[in-house]
């Protein structure tokens, strides 16, 4: 009994994370932010953040294409190719635009083209981070 009392006195209070229910704005911002970089922030009136994300992601994506980076297509082959595709598709509408226009054929004879491939993948990954950030703003987890 005394032991239990002593334990309860010394035990640290449990940290309870507040719950953030899924909201329509959160989901809308997530999808919008994924499709168009920065749009998830812009629809929530975070104009400057949205604009900076838009410029950053587009700059990386188009510089990657300009360096003759490769756009991956859906595949079930090599693990790195699958991961490349997942990174690419993070860019949302930019990925589909590039596929429709047949951009990003790659160039194995040029070292810079490999950097370009990485630029395109990272642009997609940064866009995913931004879309999730917009979701957090939408559900009230972040200001």
């Amino acid at each position: 009994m005394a032991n239990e009392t002593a334990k309860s006195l010394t035990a640290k209070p449990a940290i309870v994370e507040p719950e953030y229910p899924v909201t329509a704005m959160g989901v809308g911002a997530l999808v919008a932010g994924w499709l168009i970089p920065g749009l998830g922030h812009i629809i929530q009136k975070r104009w400057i953040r949205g604009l900076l994300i838009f410029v950053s992601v587009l700059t990386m994506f188009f510089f990657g294409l300009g360096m003759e980076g490769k756009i991956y297509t859906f595949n079930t082959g090599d693990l790195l190719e699958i991961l490349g595709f997942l990174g690419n598709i993070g860019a949302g509408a930019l990925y589909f635009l590039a596929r429709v226009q047949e951009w990003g054929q790659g160039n194995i004879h040029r070292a810079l083209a490999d950097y370009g491939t990485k630029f395109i993948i990272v642009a997609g990954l940064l866009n995913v981070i931004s879309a999730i950030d917009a979701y957090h703003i939408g559900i009230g987890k972040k200001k």
Partner: protein
Amino acid sequence: MNIELSHFSAALLFALCASVVFGITQKNAPKEMMQYGVKCFGMFFGGVIVASWIMWLLKH
């Protein structure tokens, strides 16, 4: 459209764009975002310089 960048300028462009997004997404207040973005850029830039010196030393 072909873009010609040196390895160094490509690394700096990468650092700039990534730092902007990291700053915005990882912090809450605008001032903290700026500070974190600058810190990330500095870390990227420093990493490039250190890595290039290590490669130079390995080569020589």
